[in-house]
């Protein structure tokens, strides 16, 4: 028995109605794009910023700049770029970066970090959450732009070309940022190894 097909969202039609100042269409557009925007916002959420506030800012920018959208790239890519650049602006605004110290890690996080630095075994499945937290704390040590590049490359496994599309930066700049960020992370690991968990 064929499933009752859910009608596909008519993005082009919705955009047309938004341009004619149809508030209902604007609501539909926000509802449709919210999952895309919130995933980006959650991945790059700066400290002490509410995800809902940041998402709202992304949508406000989207509506303000809607007249500039020419259709050269898919609309979702265009909105993703707005979301990424809004997050990076907020990350840049946070000038202070918290120091990474063994003493500030939870018991589980310290154990996982100790284990990955002293042996070459893969992280246990039940330590995945601690690894997730550790990765975010380590990333927080980097400059906002470098942080974004490494997050997209190593966590979201995006290609350089995809990152270029999302950020608007050229590919050489992304490679330079990735190189710089990895060097900083390597230095950080060496320092952690030297201090070692007491």
């Amino acid at each position: 028995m064929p499933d009752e097909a859910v009608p596909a969202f008519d993005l082009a039609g919705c955009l047309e109605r938004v341009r004619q100042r149809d508030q209902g269409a604007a609501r539909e557009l926000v509802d449709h794009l919210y999952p895309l925007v919130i995933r980006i916002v959650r991945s790059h959420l700066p400290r002490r910023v509410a995800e809902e506030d940041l998402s709202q800012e992304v949508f406000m920018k989207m509506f303000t700049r809607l007249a500039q959208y020419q259709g050269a790239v898919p609309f979702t890519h265009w909105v993703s770029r707005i979301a990424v650049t809004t997050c990076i602006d907020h990350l840049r605004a946070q000038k202070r970066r918290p120091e990474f110290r063994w003493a500030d890690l939870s018991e589980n996080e310290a154990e996982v970090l100790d284990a990955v630095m002293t042996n070459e075994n893969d992280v246990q499945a039940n330590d995945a959450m601690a690894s997730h937290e550790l990765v975010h704390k380590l990333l927080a040590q980097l400059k906002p732009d470098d942080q974004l590049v490494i997050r997209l490359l190593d966590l979201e496994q995006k290609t350089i070309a995809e990152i270029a599309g999302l950020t608007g930066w050229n590919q050489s700049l992304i490679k330079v940022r990735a190189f710089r960020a990895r060097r900083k992370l390597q230095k950080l690991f060496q320092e952690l190894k030297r201090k070692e968990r007491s």
Partner: protein
Amino acid sequence: MSSNLQDPRHPWARLTAAARTVPDERDTAAPYGFATRVAALAFAHEETVVSLFDRFALRALGVASLLAIFSVAWNYRVLTAEPSSQPVTFASSEELVMPAYDPVAVVLDIAD
């Protein structure tokens, strides 16, 4: 410890590999009322920009036009008069001195 972060044996590579396995189970649907609030704010913002333009730019244009018409009407005779063929001369150099209120002279007068 390997010096290449992309080496799968490097602590960073193992940490990120583990971190990627953590599923994000948070709801991705817009919170209740979010879309309505954002849509209303977006249109209200647009209206504010337009009304500010109406209020200041168009009104200023109207005032400027009125002033232009008034100044043309006020100077109509001068503008339509035949230009004089004789050069403008001053009777004496004293006429060039503009009468002005001199606060220093007033202070000196009071002192006297």
